[in-house]
């Protein structure tokens, strides 16, 4: 009963490096999301996907890329990391239809860019 699994939990990245945050869910949810949470701030949507092969930008997509080749996986790619991308990243998933707004979140990935 894993739910939404994110890896890594913690990572330190140097400015200009790239990395991928992994997210996988085992609930057969069609919708998946990436949010970031900065200190004292709410959750801001980076990208989301309504199904395999379909992705869309959220509120703060710059500096990130996503892909959705399977229902289960929704990796988030950071290209040319900047200090402004220091944040906690949350992946989430949800069903379609009436349950679409009840998101199941992963435990988060804390990323520091130095």
């Amino acid at each position, binding site marked *: 009963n894993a739910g939404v699994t994110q890896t890594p939990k913690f990572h330190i990245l140097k400015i200009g490096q790239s990395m991928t945050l992994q997210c996988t869910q085992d609930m057969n949810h069609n919708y998946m999301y990436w949010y970031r949470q900065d200190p004292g701030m709410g959750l801001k949507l980076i990208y989301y996907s*309504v199904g395999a092969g379909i992705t869309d930008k959220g509120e703060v997509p710059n500096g990130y890329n996503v892909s959705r080749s399977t229902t289960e996986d929704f990796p988030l790619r950071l290209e040319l990391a900047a200090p402004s991308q220091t944040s906690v990243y949350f992946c989430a998933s949800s069903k379609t239809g009436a349950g679409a707004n009840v998101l199941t979140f992963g435990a988060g990935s804390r990323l520091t860019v130095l």
Partner: protein
Amino acid sequence: DQQVKQNSPSLSVQEGRISILNCDYTNSMFDYFLWYKKYPAEGPTFLISISSIKDKNEDGRFTVFLNKSAKHLSLHIVPSQPGDSAVYFCAATFRPSGNTPLVFGKGTRLSVIA
């Protein structure tokens, strides 16, 4: 421009008393509202929701009230327990079953003192 506002960053309440967390929204198109709860080092979890066709929804100790004319909702926790200490996020969207991603407030940190 914040569409969902939680103006109190923190709240302290004695165990057994009522906790009232407030949320205001600016977009009159929002018609479905949710509260999520977050413990440290964990992802947010869904707590309770309300559709704009209602003005109250109860689930055990948790009640959400919606005042559409004031664009205001509140979460009441009665009685408050130490385990309720967490950050509470208010979220809103345009329809209950659609794939429009949630917009979150900044959160209110609730501390319930034994």
